[in-house]
């Protein structure tokens, strides 16, 4: 058979048709189509979480001073969910966005993997891993060298709070080492404690019985935006709203901006910013004039009322106050009457989330209002919550160097003659260090991020440069850690035992203990153990100050009788001890807090906005929370400042367009958001953005609000009373 071209074509066509038919009648093509489709359903890069025994464990969230009880859901060893703990006296099952996103902080790439030493310049973020012994040895050599040079007082230590065993260990270490400079980060607690000292003569803070009050007058407090213990306050707000039909409580918000609290309030009075004290005194004026005040309480449980009354009645008539605050006299009078006549009225102080000290006079004026209607230490009123910082530990042995160091005055001037009652003035540190570079030779930072949270970020940066040796105990690579020389990472709050003091603004005392619900993820060590290890290595009296061998022993002993209930249920709710003692009216004349900058070149007023979905304290915002930010707050890497359309019209600013925000302290490009919710002439900037630490889920997004504002000293308390700054906005 001759194989010519035609036959060849016939052959191939025949064979290929046969092959086609053969394949079609075999499972090959159909099975492959099915399997390739199934392959797309199980791509190797799509994670498959491992199954296993589900268990729950209770602990306490330590991401903010709210200290909510949380229940952790675990699958075998993995923690998969953080939920609010049912029945916990503070938050009873609810949780806030930051608490719910806590796992992103536990497992995130921003965790410090182990003790690391800085390589290269500060802020360049490259580290080398070293062992714990070597790290501690390095700290010890540095500290003992300073001690030998007789300069123990040049060591400073910053912690978030001074209550609880770990902060007490740090303050005990500082005392044993010989430095008086143990400093707590600034917050409204400073002013509350100072007010309590002045007005009640007690070492206590202010607690509010929000749940039972039926008329809430809030002076700019972000009640449902993170004030006090956020979840507890939001649940109180729900009680006020759930009178099924008739309202359980009336809420009045006094704030120049329509915050979420103002929106949800029954009445929102936008007063000119900075004039809240005048309004408080004006309300007092009307209450006294109409003699609506609780005379029995005022007569026999207060002192200095006559003089205070004279001061209030002389200058704060509704007419004058309406001139300064911009609120009509009629409104002021009606508000005062409504407040006084309400069954259980309650005036609340602490602007925003209470992260800045604010004006002491304003705090005392608001407390005086409460005193006027006699709701001090009564249900639905203001409670003095005693603060116990002594844990019954033995006396701190001090050698010669230590006692000489402790003798020296504190760097930040707290407790010296010009600031007698103040315990800590953290916001002053940058100015002090910049004025006297040798002031601090070594800085220990625990559970705080001063580099980010202290006002006037540029000065802070300069100050940090001047401190030769910085040690951070941070669990995450936050700003301070990134500018530290050595990081001795503390365990994550889900990995460690720690006693948790009573939540901020809570009228009852709830002592909690957080327990490790997941084993250590990284080579971290409990900060208490690290401090004790350093002390033991330093030797001498510093070592003797710590008779315990590990932190758990410290905790058991410190908790004493409560330890059994704490170990079992994780918290102890103590009955509030009502201290006796008179309430003193502070009759000094009031001068308003002037803002930095001049009103001619900087016509606008910049005020910080504290958002519920944006962590503005030492903890960086986890990615889940940053994702929930509104598109009128953050877009790409630029944050929006809120401006009233009228103001924008006057200064040629357009919606969603760039503008240069300039103040006496800082300058940066921002986006403009026209909002009818803010008073003309004001510029609102969200607090909590502008991080450089953590990971680029958060780093580089927005500008740090603190970089625009500087410290304005409160004439009465000496703390920083900054509530804003004069600013200029020019469209770019």
């Amino acid at each position, binding site marked *: 058979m*001759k194989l010519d071209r035609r036959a060849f074509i016939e052959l191939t066509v*025949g064979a290929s*048709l*046969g092959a*086609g038919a053969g*394949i079609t*009648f075999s499972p090959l093509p159909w099975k492959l189509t099915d399997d*390739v489709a199934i392959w797309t359903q199980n791509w190797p890069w799509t994670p498959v979480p491992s199954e296993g025994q*589900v268990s729950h464990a209770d602990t306490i969230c330590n991401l903010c001073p709210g200290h909510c009880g949380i229940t952790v859901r675990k699958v075998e060893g993995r923690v998969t969910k953080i939920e609010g703990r049912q029945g916990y006296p503070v938050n009873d099952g609810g949780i806030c966005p930051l608490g719910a996103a806590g796992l992103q902080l536990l497992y995130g790439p921003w965790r410090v993997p182990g003790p690391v030493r800085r390589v290269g310049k500060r802020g360049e973020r490259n580290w080398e891993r070293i062992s714990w012994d070597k790290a501690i040895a390095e700290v010890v050599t540095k500290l003992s060298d300073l001690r030998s040079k007789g300069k123990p007082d040049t060591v400073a230590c910053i912690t978030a709070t001074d209550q609880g065993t770990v902060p007490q260990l740090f303050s005990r270490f500082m005392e044993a080492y010989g430095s008086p400079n143990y400093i707590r980060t600034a917050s409204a607690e400073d002013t509350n404690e100072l007010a309590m000292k002045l007005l009640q003569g007690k070492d206590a803070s202010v607690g509010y019985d929000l749940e039972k009050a039926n008329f809430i007058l809030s002076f700019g407090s972000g009640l449902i935006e993170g004030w006090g213990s956020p979840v507890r306050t939001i649940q109180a707000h729900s009680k006020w709203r759930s009178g099924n039909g008739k309202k359980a409580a009336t809420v009045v918000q006094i704030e120049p901006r329509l915050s979420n609290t103002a929106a949800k309030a029954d009445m929102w009075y936008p007063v000119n910013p900075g004039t809240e004290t005048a309004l408080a005194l004006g309300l007092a004026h009307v209450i006294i004039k109409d003699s609506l005040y609780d005379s029995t309480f005022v007569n026999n449980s207060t002192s200095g009322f006559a003089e205070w009354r004279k001061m209030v009645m002389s200058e704060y008539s509704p007419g004058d106050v309406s001139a300064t605050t911009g609120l009509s006299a009629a409104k002021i009078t009606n508000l005062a009457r409504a407040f006084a006549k309400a069954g259980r009225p309650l005036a609340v102080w602490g602007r925003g989330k209470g992260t800045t000290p604010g004006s002491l006079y304003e705090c005392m004026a608001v407390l005086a209002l409460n005193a006027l209607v006699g709701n001090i230490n009564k249900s639905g009123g203001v409670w003095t919550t005693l603060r116990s910082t002594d844990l019954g530990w033995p006396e701190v042995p001090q050698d010669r160097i230590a006692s000489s160091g402790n003798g020296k005055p504190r760097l930040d001037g707290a407790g010296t003659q010009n600031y007698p009652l103040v315990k800590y003035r953290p916001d002053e540190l940058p100015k002090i260090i910049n004025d006297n570079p040798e002031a601090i030779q070594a800085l220990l930072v625990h559970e705080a991020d001063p580099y980010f949270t202290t006002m006037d970020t540029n000065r802070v940066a300069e100050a940090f440069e001047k401190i030769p040796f910085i040690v951070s105990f941070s669990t995450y690579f936050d700003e301070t850690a990134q500018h530290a020389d050595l990081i001795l990472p503390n365990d994550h709050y889900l990995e460690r035992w720690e006693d948790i003091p009573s939540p901020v603004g809570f009228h009852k005392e709830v002592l909690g203990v957080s327990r490790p619900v997941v084993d250590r993820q990284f080579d971290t060590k409990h900060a208490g153990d690290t401090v004790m290890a350093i002390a033991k290595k330093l030797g001498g009296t510093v070592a003797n100050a710590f008779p315990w061998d590990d932190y758990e022993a410290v905790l058991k002993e410190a908790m004493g009788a409560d330890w059994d209930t704490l170990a079992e249920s994780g918290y102890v709710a103590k009955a509030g001890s009502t201290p006796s003692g008179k309430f003193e009216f502070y009759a000094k004349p009031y001068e308003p807090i002037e803002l930095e900058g001049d009103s001619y070149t900087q016509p606008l007023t910049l005020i910080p906005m504290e958002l519920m979905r944006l962590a503005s304290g030492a903890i960086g915002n986890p990615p889940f929370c940053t994702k929930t930010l509104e598109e009128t707050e953050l877009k790409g890497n630029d944050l929006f400042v809120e401006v009233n359309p009228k103001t924008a019209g006057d200064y040629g600013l357009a919606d969603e367009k760039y503008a240069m925000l300039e103040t006496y302290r800082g300058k940066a490009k921002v986006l403009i958001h026209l909002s009818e919710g803010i008073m003309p002439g004001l510029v609102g900037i969200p607090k909590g953005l502008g991080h450089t630490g953590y990971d680029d889920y958060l780093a580089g997004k927005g500008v740090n609000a603190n970089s625009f504002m500087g410290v304005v000293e409160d004439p009465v308390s000496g703390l920083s009373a900054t509530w804003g700054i004069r600013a200029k906005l020019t469209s770019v």
Partner: protein
Amino acid sequence: MSTSEEKERNVAGGEQRTEGSSWRFLVPVIAFFAGFLVFLCIGWGIFPKILYSEKQQPIDFNHQLHVDEMGDCEACHYFREDGSFSGIPKSENCIECHESAMGEHPEEAKLIDQYIEPGKEIPWLSYARQPDCVFFSHAAHVRMAGLDCMTCHGPIGESEHTRPYQYNRLTKYSRDIWGWNIAGIKTNTWDRMKMDDCAECHEENGTNQACFVCHK
């Protein structure tokens, strides 16, 4: 080939045929059937061999022996109190008896020095592992429907040796899921555990067939 001659041949439409004999037409037909048979064999015979590959279990486990010893399946494959199913036991279940060697079987020796002592989990290859998108509730089937293990897992309880774990290279599914017979013919219920098999059983018993009953 000049255009004229070429045109002429075109016009004729190539009708004159080469002088081949009349069986010439068989050439494509044979080619067709040859191709057909070859590819049929490839499809049915060789393809399954390539598609499925095989692994041995880490330990050759003797179910029969353990069932005689322990009583029934629930001894090792038990229900947790929240109703979820524990599945293949962890090595801590084995430690209860095999802390030290109970006989001189080589597999037990292997178990002890490779897994019990170092405290490692035994990486069992689960025959009936459903993909991640499937939610299978043993409680619903064993407790409520009263099915016995044999219906889906077959007579694994009486097996003396673990059969090799065959899995599909592409989808990573165990062969027990898509089925042993490439043609999809199912003789007993445990030969295949695909969606259609679940649907078939649900259909017969009138149980709910909404998507979220079996999917997650």
